[in-house]
């Protein structure tokens, strides 16, 4: 009896979590991999096996892999995002006036629904819209342009929107990590005459290294899978089509579920590989501050 309980007991407690995990994560992914080797329109009761054809198409047809290049804009923007978030997190972790108000203001964009963000920025970027008005008011009127209509700047505008939206998330992560560093360490550092910069350089930065590394992983997978901001604001027009928008169109506009599944599998593989490489480059060491 007791051996039986010992053997099955843990599984009993794990069962609900495992059932949910398998049902909603592994089986759909399994289905997706299965679809990716077939030609299927999403409705028909039969699927034609096509072997590796879908994958060959994703890698050989320029139209499918080129859209990955758009991710570079968002990847570059994620550095801006992490830098901004880190700066504000460090500043606001010390005693400053209206600290909580600023925390709220910085986190607020992340709470907004992605669709709402898209619409807000659509008005902001309109010719003669908020951004143009503000630029005109501060005497930079000659720098206004078609923020979304000009192909040279459209992706930068969209990536900027993405920075605005996700800085709050990185900020909260950093702030939480910084606050978990014991206060005595700062006190001791101050007694030793360390400046704010030294405190950042030798206490905060090493103390939150894990979170910074996590942020970079999130930034890479995030920039590869950008969807809602360009989808709502431009629908992928004007060379702002990301890989996920392309996959969405392939699946739901052109009813090629097999091909779209292959694209999704490729995206999954790329994200896994990038994460793995990064874990090898930046090993996850224990943090010690003493």
């Amino acid at each position, binding site marked *: 009896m007791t051996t039986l309980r010992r053997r099955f007991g843990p599984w009993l407690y794990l069962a609900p979590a495992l059932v949910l995990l398998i049902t909603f994560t592994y089986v759909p992914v399994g*289905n997706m991999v*299965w679809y990716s080797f077939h030609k299927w329109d999403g*409705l028909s*009761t*039969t*699927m034609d096996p096509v072997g590796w054809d879908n994958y060959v198409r994703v890698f050989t047809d320029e139209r499918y892999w080129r859209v990955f290049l758009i991710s570079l804009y968002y990847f570059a923007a994620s550095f801006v995002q992490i830098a901004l978030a880190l700066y504000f997190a460090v500043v606001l972790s010390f005693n400053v006036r209206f600290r909580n108000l600023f925390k709220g203001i910085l986190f607020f964009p992340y709470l907004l629904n992605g669709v709402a963000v898209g619409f807000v920025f659509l008005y902001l970027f309109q010719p003669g819209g908020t951004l143009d008005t503000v630029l005109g008011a501060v005497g930079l009127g000659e720098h206004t342009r078609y923020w979304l209509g000009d192909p040279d700047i*459209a992706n930068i505008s969209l990536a900027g929107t993405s920075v605005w939206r996700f800085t709050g998330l990185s900020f909260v992560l950093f702030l939480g990590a910084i606050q978990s560093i014991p206060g005595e360490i700062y006190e001791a550092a101050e007694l030793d005459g360390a400046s704010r910069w030294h405190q950042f350089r030798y206490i905060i930065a090493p103390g939150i290294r894990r979170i910074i590394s996590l942020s970079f992983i999130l930034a890479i997978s995030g920039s590869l899978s950008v969807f809602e901001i360009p989808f709502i604001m431009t629908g992928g027009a*004007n060379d702002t089509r990301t890989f996920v928008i392309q996959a969405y169109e392939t699946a739901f506009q*052109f009813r090629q579920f097999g091909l779209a599944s292959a694209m999704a599998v490729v995206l999954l593989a790329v994200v896994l590989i990038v994460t793995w490489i990064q874990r090898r480059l930046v090993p996850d060491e224990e943090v010690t501050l003493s």
Partner: protein
Amino acid sequence: MINRRQFLGFGAAAGLALVAGCTGGAGDDETDSSAEITGPITVLTNRTDLANSALPAYAKTFEAKYPGTKVTFEAVTNYEGDVTTQLSSGDYGDVLLIPNTVPVEQLPSFFEPLGDLADLKTKYRFTDEKAYDGKVYGLSLGGVASGVVVNKRIWQQAGITAPPKTPEEFLAGLKAVAARTDAVPYYTNYKDGWPLSIWNSQRAILGDPTINETFPTDPTPWQAGKIQYITDGLLYDLVAAKLSEKDPLTTNWEGSKPMIATGKVATMLLGSWAVPQMKDAAKAANANPDDIAFWPFPYQVGGKFHSRIEGDYKGAVSLSSKNKATARAWLDWFVTESGFATDQQAVPTLASSSLPETLKAFQDTGVDLVEIPAATANAGKEDEIIKESEVDLTGNIYRQKLVDIARGAAKGDKDSYFAELNRRWGKVQAGIMK
């Protein structure tokens, strides 16, 4: 060929019945005409604006005629996407509109046959659009004509009172609008996308009733003189001549209605369904609704304009319905007796009914309203080429690119892009039409 159900059954064996949706298509018995018309039915509709007002009013009249029936509406905002997904779950109401994503050869797996095409086409318009193998699966709830919505007052200010007869005249007219008024000559509605797909509804302008049948046999539809060259070419030329809105990426469909109503925009290519909406917008903006007029596409064959009339969404009876007799009665009643088409200023489905006022005025411009039959020998081939080549004739993706090239925001020119389209289309076409 692998049966999809087998695979999903395999998934279920792993204890996952939750995920395994089963394909619709339970029960394949014909409508039992002797069954009594009574009991409740559910009707899916895309008209979220009417679901709580006009539609229940129609239902009341129906329920009075057939006591014991009860009609409930389920309004679906994202109709195409959501209902297509619902179809594969097997539960999709009793009466619904056929999503355009369902290929004709799959109609029998989801919908109840309503009768033989040969019989029904004498009584109704647009029956062949959702027919397969001689059976009709959907009845149109009302048809639309295609053409150009214009603000007559602005065009008059530019000195033009009659509809232009050729693409060149049309371009010259838009130029005159640009020169003599403050209006934007043409509004593409590029950002919302779907208004660009209306450039695909102009096939009738050639006056060729067999065009749907012959279209998939042509490997190069973007060659000079052919239909895609004429329509897409006109779109290209007017954008290249800077006669459209300055920043197409920030257009807004709802916002475009008051713009044309008040004369900030002069022209848009749309269906006749748009005319009542624009007139309403004019009333709301204190402008004159009579400024809004509907003109034919600027192209003539044999000295005559032709405009395609085609059915809007088609109503169908669900194959999995538990109450097919009532569902069928509702569909028939809604199409023939409810007066819905007239209320919506649409072309009535019943062939014997007369045209609404908007379209009578349209006919007075000297246009032939033509229904062009759907392809039969090549049924579904065009859709297949579209899917494989991802040149979305019925959508907006390649036309947005066309506008980008025309306004100088993407590489290429008219010739290079049309050559590319011909190449992409032709490559897939050769495989499908072999």
